[in-house]
């Protein structure tokens, strides 16, 4: 096993991306993700054939990804909420062109310029409307610096396998904090052997990367084929973590940074004799519906904790077909809830059930 190191989430993710063979990065400054751009600007110029480029805008950066991915490279960009809004056009084109890319969103508070503190207010954007059109993107939600590292590798592999964009939905807390991490082995640049890549072919062998299908019948078929792939991903690649669910009356659920807080509160609740359990979606799309449905067979209520006004809560209700009540506790605007606040909510619900 390689040695543990102390690294910021943003920097650890950047290093892990390089080690996963991502030697092309296009970015633009925005707090709180700047460490990723800065790290790439330091490391990539030292690798032969690699490319770091600070684009003139988020829009340009995502379109540089489109080109680089079309040419066959493993490629990544990173931004934070307002910048991701600008990238949605490109993400839609990339999804419509069946190209693999990885986009990191170190979320901050919105709407508008919002704030720069950690937030989870881009759940809807990432999981429901990452761009116009019928499309899905893979959404990974790390909750520790180690997961920032591990998920970027998975995101690249999955994006390549299914030829689609992947979003790492992190937040300012995960990006800025340091934890001990073990970095993966350096896999080196991945061979540019994608047979669909536009990297130089003539005549009948030529490749076209395109999202335009003027004939609706043709476009319908392409979208249906794409959704068949999405269905396969939902069946095979949904990930979640669960804790103390066996006898849980109250299931607390959260993803990312707020999951750290929520799980701590569940532990405290157990110490007080409350039968609390915990589900954490690791993939937000595909959403771990079955885990919730199963828990709803025995639990008497759910509590969804988010750093927003409640964006995942409806997915939880859908997953359990509203079989039992789903409560919500959230802090918007850039505030990380404290474990005591969540514990108080759990106690309130537990009290109401007796």
């Amino acid at each position, binding site marked *: 096993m390689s040695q543990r190191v102390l690294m910021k989430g943003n920097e650890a993710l950047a290093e892990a991306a390089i080690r996963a063979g991502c030697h092309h990065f296009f970015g633009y400054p925005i707090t709180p993700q700047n460490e990723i751009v800065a790290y790439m600007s330091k490391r990539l110029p030292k690798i032969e054939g690699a*490319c770091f480029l600070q684009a003139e805008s988020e829009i*340009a950066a995502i379109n540089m990804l*489109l*080109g680089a991915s079309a*040419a066959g490279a493993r490629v990544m960009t990173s931004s934070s909420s307002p910048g991701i809004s600008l990238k949605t056009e490109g993400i839609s084109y990339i999804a419509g062109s069946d190209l693999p890319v990885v986009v990191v969103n170190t979320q901050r508070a919105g709407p508008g310029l919002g704030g720069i503190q950690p937030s989870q207010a881009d759940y809807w954007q990432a999981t429901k409307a990452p761009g116009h059109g019928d499309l899905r993107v893979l959404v990974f939600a790390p909750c520790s610096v180690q997961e920032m590292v591990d998920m970027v590798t998975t995101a690249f592999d999955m994006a390549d396998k299914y030829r689609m964009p992947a979003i790492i939905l992190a937040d300012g807390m995960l990006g800025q904090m340091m934890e001990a991490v073990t970095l993966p082995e350096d896999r080196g640049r991945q061979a540019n052997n994608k047979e669909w890549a*536009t*990297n130089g072919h003539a005549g009948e062998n030529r490749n*076209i990367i*395109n999202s335009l299908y003027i004939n609706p019948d043709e476009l319908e078929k392409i979208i249906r084929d794409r959704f068949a792939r999405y269905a396969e991903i939902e069946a095979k690649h949904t990930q979640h973590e669960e804790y103390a669910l066996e006898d849980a009356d109250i299931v607390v659920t959260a993803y990312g940074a707020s999951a750290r807080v929520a799980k701590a509160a569940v532990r405290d609740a157990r110490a007080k004799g409350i039968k609390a359990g915990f589900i954490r979606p690791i993939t937000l799309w595909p959403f771990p519906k079955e885990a919730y449905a199963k828990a709803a067979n025995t639990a008497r209520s759910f509590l969804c904790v988010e750093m927003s006004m409640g964006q995942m809560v409806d997915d939880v209700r859908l997953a359990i077909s509203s079989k039992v009540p789903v409560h919500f506790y959230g802090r918007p605007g850039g505030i990380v809830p404290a474990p005591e606040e969540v514990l108080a909510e759990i106690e309130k619900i537990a009290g109401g059930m007796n």
Partner: protein
Amino acid sequence: MTTVFERPKSLTATPNTYCPGCTHGIIHRLVAQAIDGLDMQAKTVGVAPVGCAVFAYNFFNCDMVQAPHGRAPAVATGIKRVTPDNLVFTYQGDGDLAAIGTAETIHAAARGENITVIFVNNAIYGMTGGQMAPTTLANQVTQTSPFGRDIKSAGSPIRICEMLSTLDGVAYAERVSVDSVPNIRKAAKAICKAFEIQKAGKGFTIIELLSTCPTNWGLSPVESLDWLRENMMPYYPLGVFKDIDGGKDNG
């Protein structure tokens, strides 16, 4: 038997989708000939815009990528940075390049991005039905300037080659026209020169081609050519605006 005329290898046998009398077809041919001339068909990647040339990926017989509206220079940047030995060109109209894609155009040029931009200026949005473009002339009537382009409100048309030639990253900028045989010959040479400069890794190259849009101008193809000469050429003078190899202005 001697072949006196044939389709360039870098064009497909697909019938194009342009209106009768439109000069896009000529420009496609010139670009394809230049690629053939450098024997680069299997090492060329083109980027199609949004606009009339959106289907360019069906017509150029090489690898092609279709870009979002205005973003072709950014897409081309991504391609070129991954495969620097390939010849990479964008094919863009005036709305795509000089309105929605202005930032991408200027910054690719400023970086000296080693790509070639084929800029088709016909002073109007063609695909969407003839709206005012950033290059629409003063007082020119379009669907969205029904009383003629009002300079007080809409500003003056942008001269792209002149503007870009002030940037250090630009290796070659020339404006040509496809209104006559001599001018078409000059245009062919300009495109070849731009590709050669790119092959030599010298920086950003742009060839602006004055082109017609008979359909949206409401003129016959022949009248359109006259209109181009009488109205566009005085405002958009032909010539070389930047040549790092020190070539002389031929306009």
